[in-house]
């Protein structure tokens, strides 16, 4: 719990001790990596976003703001809102389903804890795309789930499960659940059992203990989990293409289409990407500030 809290704090407040030459040397791979793969692409994206579309794709360096005006076009705003809704639902379900699991793992005995953590991580050993296509096999009309329902006589004809909003949300929750469980688990694991006992000794019931002691103490984990789920869920485009039948376009699809699709409009895609990046930064900073404001969280 302290780790996340200090990570948020470190972003704003300069650290107490300056690193020495050895420290800088150790940091240099990270700094170089960040410059090459985070800062440089972001700068390129920023520059592109003010340029004009080239004939073949590509960009013509000719300053314009029309790409940002395009982002605010109702056509795309509708998709932004939809993405927010889908990402929000996904985050809520992941939190509701992930918190109890994380709590259980965090409070389990060492042997069980390792086993359960392993169970959360094992799916990562298989490619995310393969796992998503596996859901197609399960959900399709002549698929595993429908055959099961039919043979148990729970359904009289195959249900149209695939290519629905439900299938998209299912796929998103399935993909992102571990990203909710792991940070919350890290918070729960460091939770001091003595504090819970103290709350109970002072007359707090289970509900009160949970809401007044456990939740505030695991808040950094919850915040990290919410960010780790919400932000990528907003930008993903493969799950909704595969399980939604390409009907549920999200922000990621719009951006992809400007580069790899028929639109061939790189500057507009860059403007969309920049807008997204800035929004994320704002959300991150806001959550970070609220974290520091919560007493006892640091």
């Amino acid at each position, binding site marked *: 719990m302290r780790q996340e809290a200090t990570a948020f704090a470190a972003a704003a407040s300069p650290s107490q001790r300056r690193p020495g030459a050895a420290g800088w040397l150790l940091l240099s791979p990270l700094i170089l990596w960040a410059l090459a793969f985070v800062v440089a692409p972001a700068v390129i994206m920023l520059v592109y976003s003010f340029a004009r579309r080239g004939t073949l*794709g590509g960009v013509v360096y000719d300053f314009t703001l029309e790409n940002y005006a395009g982002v605010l076009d109702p056509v795309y705003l509708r998709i932004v809102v939809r993405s927010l809704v889908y990402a929000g639902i996904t985050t809520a379900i992941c939190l509701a389903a992930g918190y109890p699991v994380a709590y259980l793992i965090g409070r389990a005995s060492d042997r069980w804890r390792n086993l359960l953590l392993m169970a959360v991580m094992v799916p990562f050993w298989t490619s995310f795309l393969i796992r998503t296509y596996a859901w197609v096999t399960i959900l399709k009309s002549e698929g595993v789930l429908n055959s099961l329902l039919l043979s148990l006589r729970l359904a009289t004809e195959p249900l149209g499960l695939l290519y629905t909003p439900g299938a998209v949300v299912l796929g998103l929750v399935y993909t992102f659940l571990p990203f909710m469980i792991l940070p919350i688990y890290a918070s729960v694991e460091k939770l001091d059992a003595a504090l819970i006992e103290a709350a109970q000794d002072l007359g707090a019931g289970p509900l009160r203990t949970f809401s007044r002691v456990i939740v505030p103490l695991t808040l950094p984990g919850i915040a990290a989990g919410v960010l780790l789920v919400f932000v990528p869920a907003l930008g993903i485009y493969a799950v909704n293409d595969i399980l939604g039948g390409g009907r549920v376009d999200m922000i990621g699809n719009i951006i992809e289409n400007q580069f790899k699709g028929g639109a061939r409009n790189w500057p507009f895609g860059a403007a969309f990407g920049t807008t997204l990046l800035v929004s994320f930064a704002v959300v991150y900073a806001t959550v970070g500030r609220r974290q520091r404001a919560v007493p006892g969280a640091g």
Partner: protein
Amino acid sequence: MSRVAPLALRLLAALASLCAAVAPAAAEELDLFAWSEYVPQSVLDGFTKETGIQVNYESYASNEEMLAKLLSGAASYDLIQPSEYAVEALVKEKRLLPLDHAKLPNLKNIGPEYWGRPHDPKLEYSVPYMQGTVGIVVNTARVKEPITGYADVFQEKHRGRIVVVNDAREVTTWGIESLGLGPDGLTKANLDKVRPVLARWLPLVRVYDSDSPKTALLNGDVDLGIVWSGEAAFLIREQPGKFAWLLPKEGAHMYIDSFAIPKGARHVDAAHRFLDYILRPEVGAKVSKEFPYTNPNVAARELLSPAERANPASYPPGNPKLATFRDIGPLAADVDKLFTDLKARSGL
């Protein structure tokens, strides 16, 4: 830290030696940049065995993706595989090297209908590789009434039973064709006319899939599709009798995927050798067996089995005259926006 730094140095040294090991192995190579799943491995192996030229096959999933990588200049390619409208755009922008026909004696195998096309009338820059059409595939076990065109597919009773390619320009062109404006009718003014047609059609669609539209049909999730002919040919071959194929009566068009040599190619001679190799009848037939599109190589068609030549999705009966797409330049962004908008409105 004192233990970490040498480790990092050693890793760097290892990396450097790895690069060194990879770089000078330039015996003879060919950097091929082509559609994914479009050139059989056996053909590449056959070429390497005969010529000793190593083929590096990098793939893409759309013309736009190919253009994006080509323009970025991050890598140099000896052969690319653009569709006709991309050939036209690349020629216009002077991005292609002219072909040396003296090195391509097998070019004579290309059928007469592939010469004189507007994107490259004399095949100065491109060699047709495969040709496809876009048409309607019907699961005849589930759809009993006759289907003849787009209007028959997009009916209320077929709501939720349709797959179409996820391609703004294609779908918009179908609407244009259904209005009788022809495949070249894609203009800014006509976009307003086609809007209500698409607004009626798109809510009926269950799946948009350009990569493998056959999957939803095979899985039984949908019963009708407007898809690439190669996808339909595959369905007809795999499940004979179940699927029917037809070209929409409102008008159909075709696309021609060609090979071309981009400027900046490093192995121009090897590229010509590969082109002439692939133009051989027996090699062309091998390609056809794996990817049952229409083969522009008429000598290769002779070597196919009667069943393969009778597949209506590969070789439509009556050999209909089909138009090709032209480069529409910046209008592509408007078409994409229209499609995105209507999809979002009809969506979930």
